[in-house]
Each structure stands twice: as structure tokens, then as C-alpha cells.
């Protein structure tokens, strides 16, 4: 794979009987060498991917004097846990968290339901406009959202939704193309005989969707839920536009405001890293919880085109 010569040229069909062992050991030495280099590279690269996180966490339990100490201490002495309550006290993070939770719950449930309903229409039902609409939906995946930004803002201003959580949650309840596509691809792997059998038994289309297909599609639904979570949890541009009072801030807005606060009179890296760690933890927990499904989901979307 890697461009190391594993010497498989050594004429496979006509192996000299006497040299078989020598030939085999030559291959295994080359293989082992290439395997060793692979591990070395993976460990080095993995290290560069992981170190920033570790450094963030150690910084978050240092005093500001320790932060400025060179060379940096890997495990700070003493460990300063006070940064965490101190950071959380500087801004009302509890309220930010609550706001984010509200948005995330609405968006995740909305996405899973709306995407799976639309996916059902695009895969299990036969109707005339289906393929045209599906093509339109796929092409909107390439559409940058900025063109719609200003009219949306005007719309939400008319509705008097500015400085509420509505404009950052309601538009994201409607099926997103990516999630719909993902679930449709999954539905396509389930035999249509199941629908026919359900129909013979007198089940309505909705019951087929709700009681048969949804329970069979848990992995992809979990993947869509995780993507929706990540989007809603990390969204910054929309809250920045629509929300202007602290009681309505989401976590990303709060963290951004915290950065400005922590910069007063010299950057308090210790507190900033503590706050950052706190904000990262829910995303990490969701990832750990949904990892298996997430990777399956990405696999579906990436390969089965």
C-alpha cells in the first residue's frame, strides 16, 4: 500500500522447492519492516492529533503562573482544579448550557423525524414528482447558505423571533438533504417485500414507516441524530446573528464572549482552557456513545452513491 517494496515479484508460480523457506522468510522480513514503519507513522500522527487535547487539559488545571513556566510541565504541580468553578462563575454557563440543550433537543428530534419521513417518500413510495424533487434536494446540498441569510433574517424579524431561540432551532427541524439522503440509502437496502406484506396485513403507509422501517433503521437514525447534535451544538453563525442578550446565549456564543472576558489584562489561558474543556465534554460524550453508528453512517453516505 505504502510504496515499500514487499518483493512479491519473486515469481509466485514457480517457487524453487529448496528455497521455499528462504523465500518465505525474505517476504516476512520485508512485511514486518513495512508493518513496523506503518505503526511508527500511525503513532507519530496519532500523537500529533491527540497532543493538543492533552495540552488543553493540563493547561486547564494550571495556575496562570504555571502556564507561563518554561519548559511547560506535563503534569502540573500542584493541580489547580479551582479553574473550573472560577471559569464557570465568570459567565452564566448554566444558562448557556440550558439554552443549547433546548435547541439541541428540538433539532435532533426534528431532524430524525423529518429526514426519515422524507426518506420514506423518496425510497418506499412511488409517485410522479419523486425523482425530480429528489434531484432538487441533492442539488441544494451544494448551495451555500449565505444567499438565504438576509431574507431569513428579515423573515424572522417580521415574525418577532429576534433574540429568541426560535430562529436557531425551527429552520433546522425541517429535513436536511444530507440526513435524508443518508436514511434513503439505508432504506434502499431493506427489501420492499416487507412493505407489501405489511400492506396485505392492512397496515397503513404511516404504520409501515413507524412500526417496521424505523425500528429496523436504528444505526442510521443514530448517525443522523449525532450529526444533527453536532450541528446544533456547535452552530455559531446563526446564534451570532439572531441572539444579542446574554440570557439567550448558546454555549459557542458564551465561549466566544468568555474569550473576550478572559483577555482583560493579559489572557487567562488557564480559565479559557477550563471553559473550553467543559464545552467540549458533551460533544465527546455523544461521540463515545454513538461512535459505532456514526462511523457506519458516514460509511453509508460516502460510498453508496
Amino acid at each position: 500500500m505504502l510504496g515499500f517494496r514487499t518483493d512479491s515479484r519473486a515469481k509466485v508460480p514457480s517457487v524453487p522447492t529448496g528455497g521455499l523457506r528462504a523465500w518465505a522468510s525474505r517476504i516476512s522480513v520485508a512485511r514486518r519492516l513495512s508493518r513496523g514503519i506503518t505503526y511508527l507513522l500511525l503513532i507519530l500522527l496519532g500523537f500529533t492529533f491527540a497532543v493538543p487535547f492533552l495540552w488543553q487539559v493540563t493547561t486547564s488545571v494550571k495556575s496562570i503562573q504555571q502556564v507561563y513556566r518554561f519548559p511547560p510541565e506535563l503534569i502540573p504541580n500542584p493541580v489547580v482544579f479551582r479553574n473550573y468553578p472560577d471559569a464557570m462563575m465568570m459567565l452564566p454557563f448554566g444558562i448557556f448550557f440550558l439554552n443549547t440543550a433546548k435547541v439541541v433537543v428540538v433539532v435532533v428530534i426534528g431532524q430524525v423525524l423529518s429526514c426519515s419521513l422524507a426518506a420514506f417518500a423518496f425510497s418506499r413510495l412511488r409517485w410522479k414528482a419523486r425523482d425530480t424533487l429528489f434531484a432538487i434536494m441533492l442539488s441544494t446540498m451544494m448551495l451555500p447558505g449565505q444567499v438565504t441569510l438576509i431574507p431569513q433574517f428579515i423573515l424572522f424579524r417580521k415574525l418577532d423571533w429576534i433574540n429568541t431561540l426560535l430562529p436557531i432551532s425551527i429552520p433546522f427541524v425541517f429535513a436536511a438533504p444530507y440526513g435524508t439522503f443518508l436514511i434513503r440509502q439505508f432504506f434502499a437496502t431493506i427489501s420492499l417485500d416487507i412493505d407489501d406484506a405489511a400492506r396485505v396485513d392492512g397496515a397503513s403507509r404511516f404504520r409501515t414507516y413507524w412500526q417496521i422501517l424505523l425500528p429496523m433503521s436504528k444505526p442510521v437514525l443514530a448517525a443522523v441524530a449525532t450529526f444533527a447534535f453536532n450541528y446544533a451544538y456547535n452552530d455559531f453563525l446563526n446564534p451570532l446573528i439572531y441572539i444579542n442578550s446574554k440570557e439567550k446565549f448558546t454555549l459557542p456564543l458564551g465561549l466566544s464572549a468568555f474569550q473576550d472576558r478572559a483577555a482583560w489584562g493579559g489572557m487567562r489561558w488557564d480559565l479559557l482552557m477550563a471553559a473550553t474543556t467543559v464545552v467540549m465534554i458533551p460533544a465527546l460524550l455523544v461521540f463515545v456513545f454513538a461512535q459505532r453508528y456514526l462511523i457506519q453512517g458516514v460509511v453509508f453516505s460516502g460510498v453508496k452513491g
Partner: protein
Amino acid sequence: MTAQALRSGKRREIRDELTGWLFAAPWTVGFLIFTALPMLASAAISVMDWNFISTPKFVGLANWQKALADDPLVLQSLRVTTLFAMTSVPLQAVFSLFIALLLNQPIRGLRFFRTVFYLPSVVSGVALAMLYRWLLSPDMGLINYALAQIGIDGPAWLLDPDWALPALVLTTLWGIGGMIIIYLAALQGVPTELYEAAEVDGARAWDKLRAITIPMISPAVFFQVTMGLIAAFQQFVSAQVLTQGGPNNATLFSVLYLYRVAFQQFRMGFAAAIAWLLFFFILAVTAILFKLGGVWVYYEGMME
């Protein structure tokens, strides 16, 4: 067929059509309200002069002329954004393919490594930007500390007009976890018989990569590059949080400038024109990519 059967067949057809529209409504309704109509409205706003408070005034193509020719910052933002997209996306594609190739061998701890590489992609947005800020800090940051260890005096990164954009490109390399996983899936779809046949013919590892692996996974490469470019052209968070477009407008991404014009200066017509300009720009780049893609993407089962 009796007239009655014909009628009931017709009725079922209508019902099927209705069911389809009904199930698809969670997408179509959202599409109309939040995409289609706003796009029309946005086109209308782009020919008006309007600051929210005043009554909109029709000004013809004045906003477009400003966006295309008169405002140097529009051009600067397009330049910065293009430079960012054209450097970060190829780098991401190459690095993620390299790591995916490493992981696609029979190794122990695949799940562990996969998790490590995916981790930064899980936490995105502002939290990650805070961490980048800390890593790239000129005197305190880990990157300059590491460089100092090997005798290099690191630049001021985000504070240096020449290094701010490269620094932001560098940070995107950290978020290639999703790409790695898609490549891994694509690699696992390459039939092993092809490699076996090539080995019989005496192909080396490099030959196999060039003649089998890359062509076979080219649809995945194409997908990733396209999506990556579209995302790169819409970069916003890192510039807003880390550099505020500076220093000296070196990281003034188009969306950042759009945000300022629309929501800080309230020049709605001008902002709409910029948005459309950016839209056409991305459309053109994507179209070129598709044109090129036809040449080098290999689709199995497609007739010559």
C-alpha cells in the same frame, strides 16, 4: 377493464401521489420557506438600497457594480477565500488519504487509531478555535515551543499578515477525521482480486496504489474534494473568533465580510449582492470541478 376498475385505479394513483407529497412535506415545506423563497427575495434585495429602517429604494445594478468593481474588500475577501480553499482542500485530501492507507492494512488497534483521528472532528466550532488560539500563541503556544526545540524561531502566526492564513489552513488539517473514515470505507470496497492479479503480474506497491487503488476510489476523492471546497468557501468561525479578519484583512473570508456588511453595517442590498456573487463563484468552481472530474473519476459499471 371495466369503467369501475379504471376509476378505482385512477383513485389509487391520486392517493399514491398524495401520500408521496405528504411524506416528503418535511423537506419540501422547509425548502420553500427557508431556501427557495429567500433566494428569490435575496435577488430582489440585491437591486435595492436598504438599511432595515429606510424604505427600500430600487437602485438597479449599483450594488452589483460595487461588489464586482468598486469595493476592494470584496475582491480581497474572494482572493483570501480562494487561496484558503485551494490550499486547504488538496492538503486535506492528500493527508487523509495517506492516513486512510496506513489504517487500511491489517493492523492492531484500528478502532483506537480511528477514534484518535476522528476526535478533533467531533468538537468543531468555537471550542476548537479556542484551542487553536492557544496552540498558535506566538510566545506561549505549543507549536512555537516545538519549533524552538529544533532551533526554529516560529512566526507570530495569527498576528502576522503573512502567516495568519497559512495558520488557518494548518488548523483545518486537524479536522480530516471524517474524510479518513470515508476513504477507509472506499478502500475496503476495492476488490482484492485486482491486487492479487497485479501481484501475479509483478506489480509493486506503488504501482498498485497508482493503477488500482487511486482509480477505484476516485469517486470518493471527488466527493470529498467537492464537499470540502464548498465548505472551505463558506469558512467563517475561525476567522471571526481567531483573527476578526485581520491582520490587515489577511483572513477576511467572504462570509465574514458578508456578515459585517449585513449585520454590522446594515447594507442589506450590498450584502445580498455579495452573497450572490459568492454563490456564482462557488457554482463556477464546482462546475469546473465536475468538468475535470469527468476526466479522472472512474465509475465502475459505466460504459465508455
